[in-house]
């Protein structure tokens, strides 16, 4: 029996499995459900309830940014057959790599904590205390993954987490003013307030992340350096990002149409569930709760493990679920550490969760411009990319994105 020993192999499994599901459920939904995990749904719900349709144009532009970044990562994976972190270490050396990995771990720690917060929120919808639900979920995640029995529950989680598609139905049933929605989506209107900037950065932070690029490149690299057929991959990347963001947009539309119009700002899971009432009626809370817990558990299982693989691989440490604990202390230590810390943070009342989310947000927004610049350097390197170097328009869009994210972060620090 052979077990995966490499991060990208773990990824490949996922990708392959996704293809199998894709043949039943359609590839767009897969990507949509991945984009819309607990922090994603929370972010879009809050943004929709607070800013209404006026937030929609942001989604349009974020989609463009996501497509550009993900396409670049996929192209590098297809040309070199190597992961992004591999390329960074080989081209820029250990220090920068270490710094970037540290940032990724911090950011992913925050995202993992957000998943457990999602578990806590949905458990409390059903009247179960978080002090019971979260430790049970954490233990289940650790055991299911290390013992390998995860596979058995995975399909259930995956199907349940597709609930975010219900937002589309919900938004349509509300019968919103579509011409108004189209106008708001196409005409940019910037607001200068701390809340607004925070919402924009949070939305960028759940959609365009260094981690997503690392993950995308590893997936493509592991399929083999098959640059001749890159057209298919490119189409896949674009349609995936587009469909994912369509669901995001519908979350905003349905929250805007149900909550924003009544002046309710989402602060709790009960309130967020209201956005599903048009489609689910009195079952809205159950649909929301079950879907959220499934999406959270799914991400909480994958994210810590994939992060651990990525770190151990680039640092050259023993890794893999087939290694014994004594032989791979860094691997098991980091994996358990990510789960334990994120669980504790959700359980300790008061500051820590907020602090960690904030740190994770900071890590992401500091890291994103750096990783974007590094990606630009790599993707323009003749020796690495040959004839598949970036076109100028890609460079310009990526640079603009990096500058905007930096500017928004700085503005926020300034204001905050």
């Amino acid at each position: 029996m052979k077990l995966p020993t490499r991060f990208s192999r773990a990824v490949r499994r996922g990708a392959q499995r996704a293809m199998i599901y894709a043949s039943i459920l359609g590839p767009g939904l897969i990507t949509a459900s991945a984009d819309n995990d607990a922090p994603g749904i929370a972010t879009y719900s809050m943004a929709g309830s607070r800013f209404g349709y006026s937030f929609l144009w942001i989604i349009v532009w974020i989609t463009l940014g996501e497509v550009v970044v993900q396409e670049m990562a996929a192209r590098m994976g297809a040309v070199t057959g190597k992961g992004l972190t591999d390329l960074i270490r080989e081209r820029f050396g250990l220090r920068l790599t270490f710094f970037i990995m540290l940032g990724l771990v911090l950011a992913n720690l925050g995202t993992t904590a957000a998943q457990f917060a999602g578990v806590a929120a949905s458990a409390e919808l059903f009247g179960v205390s978080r002090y019971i639900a979260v430790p049970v979920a954490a233990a289940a995640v650790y055991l299911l993954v290390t013992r390998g029995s995860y596979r058995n529950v995975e399909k259930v989680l995956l199907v349940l987490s597709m609930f975010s598609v219900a937002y589309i139905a919900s938004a349509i049933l509300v019968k919103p003013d579509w011409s108004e929605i189209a106008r708001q989506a196409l005409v940019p209107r910037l607001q200068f307030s701390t809340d607004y900037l925070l919402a924009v950065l949070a939305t960028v932070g759940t959609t365009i992340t260094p981690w997503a690029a690392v993950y995308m490149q590893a997936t493509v690299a592991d399929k083999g350096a098959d640059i001749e057929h890159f057209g298919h991959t490119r189409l896949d990347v674009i349609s995936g990002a587009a469909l994912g963001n369509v669901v995001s947009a519908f979350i905003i539309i349905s929250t805007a149409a149900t909550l924003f119009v009544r002046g309710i700002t989402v602060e709790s899971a009960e309130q967020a569930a209201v956005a599903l009432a048009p489609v689910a009626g009195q079952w809205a809370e159950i649909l929301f709760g079950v879907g959220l817990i499934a999406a959270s558990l799914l991400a909480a299982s994958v994210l810590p493990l994939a992060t651990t693989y990525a770190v151990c691989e680039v640092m050259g440490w023993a890794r893999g679920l087939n290694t014994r604990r004594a032989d791979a202390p860094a691997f098991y230590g980091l994996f358990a550490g990510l789960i334990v810390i994120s669980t504790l943070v959700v359980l300790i009342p008061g500051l820590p969760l907020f602090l960690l989310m904030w740190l994770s947000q900071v890590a992401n927004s500091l890291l994103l411009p750096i990783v974007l610049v590094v990606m630009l350097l790599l993707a323009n390197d003749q020796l690495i990319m040959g004839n598949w170097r970036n076109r100028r328009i890609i460079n310009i869009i990526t640079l603009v994105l990096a500058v905007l994210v930096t500017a928004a972060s700085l503005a926020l620090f300034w204001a905050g």
Partner: protein
Amino acid sequence: MAVHLSQLIGKTVYDERNRALGRCLDVLVEERSHATPIVCALAVRASGAQELLVPAQQVAWLAPAIILTTDAPSEYLPRGNELWLRKNVLDRQIVDLEGHQLVRVNDIQLIRRGDGRYLLGSVAVGGASLMRRLGLEKLNDLGQRVIGSKVPDRYIPWTEVAAVQPNAPIRLRVSREKLQAINAADIADIVEELDRPSGVALLEMLDDEAAADAISEVEDELQPALLAALPAARAADVLEAMDPDDAADLLAALEEEDRQDYMSLMDTEESAIVGKLLAYPVDSAGGIMTTEYTTVPADLTVAEALVHLRTSPQAREDETMYYLHVVDVSGHLQGVASLRDLVMADPDARISEIMEGSPVTVDVLTNQLDVAQVVAKYNLLEVPVVDQEGVLHGIVTVDDAIDAVIPTAWKKRLPRFF
């Protein structure tokens, strides 16, 4: 005296009169047959971003400072067999031939020889070298003082590593023998872990047999991609060297057109066997059986049968000879005899007397799960596969039967994300 590459990169290079010439960019070593590689030049970035290669003969010291023996260094002319240590080795994954695993090069140690030349000594892959490069050496020393232990380092002699890289196979001829000696399952793990081009480069270093064994051990879903990355003629050679059932499985996973291409490049006999296996459904006994088995005619004596085995090319090919299959001229299975029966029997006894006349068999179209049931129920090491007329077509060995029931190891399935 040993110097670390990480301590040289970026260091100022001084000429004989102690004037700064530029900064050290890279160290080039020359691969030599049956000897440790020797430093042959330094790549130096002089003022004005101009890069020059200084021959190693004109380098007096690398540590504590890089000092040349001249104030007008000549230009080293690359011959194409140089290894650029920073560009091609540092921070890359490399095969540890002793530990049979992939390691990442954190640093490279150069050793000063009696005549002042530097040799490529070893690569550092441990935690201490990682900390040194991150500038955390003091933290490690602190650990030593405070808790009495520090992160250890690990050095692997250059002779015990293989640097695998597509397009730069300089190191390959030296390590080929050692690579060849690594167990196929370990090679397969390494190939799976490496990025695809490097994995293919590694496979290309092996001979057909070793490459075939390694590919057979690689996960099924990866095999077609690896095969496709090899040159077509080489791929056909590797397919020939594989067990026919493995080759058939692999070919079955390919597109029809590619399958035809490979089979037309293969030796006619091998391709005919594989073609026959391909005709059966993948989950049937015919799909998982091997055609490498041993037959003897029924009318031989035990002594004659042993001679027959030793001289039969077919028996020589057979890797797992647990049973002899007794067949008539038209290939009908008459019975089986275990090797034990043969060895223990009276040399003059007839095979037909000692054989099991009505052995357990499965039909070529029996489902693989049922085959596994049969193997388990009767505690068999292998089960003969026959058609409706009773003609022997192959055998399913116990390992292939088990593979069919234990679903490709649940543990290797990892959580998905997208």
